[in-house]
């Protein structure tokens, strides 16, 4: 059994104040760095390139530090791409049209998975090549014609910009990578869809 008479080991008031100041200083520095990176990334938007195909929009990367975007110029929106989906591209081949007559579904692929059954670069979805998923654009009041659910509820990973809701719909039954990998890719695209933003087009 230990003795009952113990030495005082806690912070003094002064020490406590100092510890708080250290934490505050670190926080302020981190915030300043974050703001600087954020400011830099919006200016390195890999947006529209008028020479690129309308059906497949390769991703343009800018010198680091950057945020890579997938710009869907037909809709004037862009999605920030994390590292795991930085080689994303889209095609409107096989898309149906929305209320404004524009394609309503941008099928998504990853160049790195093109050779394993997810190459939708020229044909859109086929039996042998399935997309990773799609970014779709609908009115917030639109419903899935089969389930009857609002797209906004059926695919909550999205955001409303102006009159349209932009969401991510994973393609079921794809097998061009391990289930774990595909799940992480879906998660990354979902996050990207939630961060969809207006893109400036020339």
């Amino acid at each position, binding site marked *: 059994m230990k003795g009952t008479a113990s030495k005082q080991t806690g912070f003094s008031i002064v020490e406590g104040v100092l510890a708080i100041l250290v934490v505050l200083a670190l926080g302020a520095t981190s915030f300043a760095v974050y703001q600087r990176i954020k400011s830099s990334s919006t200016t390195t938007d890999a947006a529209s390139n008028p020479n690129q195909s309308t059906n497949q929009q390769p991703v343009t990367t800018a010198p680091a530090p950057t945020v890579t975007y997938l710009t869907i110029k037909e809709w004037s929106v862009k999605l920030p791409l994390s590292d795991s989906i930085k080689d994303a591209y889209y095609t409107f081949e096989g898309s*149906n049209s929305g209320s404004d007559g524009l394609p309503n579904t941008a099928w998504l692929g990853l160049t790195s998975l093109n050779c394993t059954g997810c190459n939708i670069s020229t044909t859109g*979805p086929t039996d042998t090549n399935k997309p990773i998923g799609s970014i779709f654009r609908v009115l917030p009041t639109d*419903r899935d014609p*089969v389930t009857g659910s609002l797209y906004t509820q*059926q*695919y909550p990973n999205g955001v409303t910009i102006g009159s349209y809701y932009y969401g991510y*719909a994973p393609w*079921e039954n794809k097998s061009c990578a391990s289930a774990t990998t595909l799940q992480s890719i879906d998660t990354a695209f979902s996050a990207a869809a939630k961060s969809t933003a207006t893109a400036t087009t020339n």
Partner: protein
Amino acid sequence: MQKYFLQTSHRLPVLLIALAAALVIPFISLPEIARADINNTRADAFGTDELAGASWLDGAGVVIKSNGSSAGDHSPITNNSVNGINSGEEWQCVEMVNRLYLTQGWTTANWSGDGNTLINNVPSGLTAQTDGSISYLHPGDVLTLDGGPAGTGHAGIINSVGSTIQIVNQNTVAVYSSASLQSGTSFGAGNADIDMSGWATYTVQTVVHAPQVRLGALTTTPSYLAKQNSYDNNPWVTINNDSTVTQGIQSGSLTAVVNNGALWVKQGSLSSSWVTEMNSGVAKAAIFDNYGTNTMRIGYLSTSGSFFVKEGISGTWTDEYDGVSAGYLAGSRIGVLTSSGAFLVKDGTLGASWTTLYTSGVSQGVVSSNLVGMMLSGSFYVKQGSLSNPWTDEYDGAVTGQLSDLGYITPIRIGVIDNLGNLYVKEGSLTATWTTIYNGVVSQAVLSGNLIGVQTGGTYLVKQGSLGASWVTENTGINNITLWTPN
């Protein structure tokens, strides 16, 4: 007596309450009352009749049922059947497709799959075209889609084809949906790409074509009538009722008439517009189309005895042969019977070389894509395959002969009308056994795939399917018949 009545001042409020109760109580006591809202089947009870079969596909549809409030399975899962054949899970989209096709006799067994996997199990005899490579579309065709939240896609039935395409669906919110062709694509170019407006996250996958039939009849009036599709509820359509019409023909998507010496052709719907292919000087016409299997060809025999052929509606005429009494088109083959009784056939381009099959004495030539036949001194001779193959004497004592070898599911057929007017047909090979198809005076017989048509005493009879199938009286007051099917 007065004590049994309410006071006047109380009567009105009580009656109003009673009326309100009468209106509300049925909805409280009967929450599952079946009501059909074809624009929101999800609000209807599982199994509700949404659309009667008589209300679509020109009356040849099947009942569209509600799958209830959700698109998924209902427990316990029950399968429906048609004449004992499983049509699939009630009331999924694929069940309706199966029920229609089984009811129409277009399939004879369950067509298994989800909406997006039906394409992997297309029944024998049906043909599919991938979206973006579609060359024709007809009511009754199956449209399949991939994608969607469940990953099982969807399947519906084409109900009408025009500037917009109407689709009838089961297990969707709305029974009807519409589509159109993507800009820059067309059936004529064989690259039609269907756009299902509003179906975000889905993609049109394929069209599986229903078997098609077209019948034509030149009446004694005269006028030219036609009807299409294998379901019998389709009415005859007056194609041309000018008293000067002398010939009408059906082949694939083409309809042609010779009217007052002019050749008019229309493509697609029976109600589409005429194209004047030749203004005058046409004695008789020949057309061939098999929905893209071979190049579409249009031909005419001029009143001066020359046979001209062109490829496509807007092609250029080629004078194929002069001194001709009859011209024939089938597949990649062109045939002519000369005024002197020689029978010549070419296979390939319009400029291909002629092969003389017989030099004189031929009274009738018959050309199909892989068979040729001729009537010579009362006998019908046929050769199969290469034009240089030997003739087989098929029947002695015949008046005319007919051939068919373009059916997707029907073996070759050879038919003859004998001196007494009886019709005999053999199926499968040149040496098959003859079957008596019609005992009596047959004025004209036509074979196409699994169809046999005869004109006897002005009555137009057709049988579809096996050689032993029953006759259906199609029309009366007829003096010339034509028919076509890809099957």
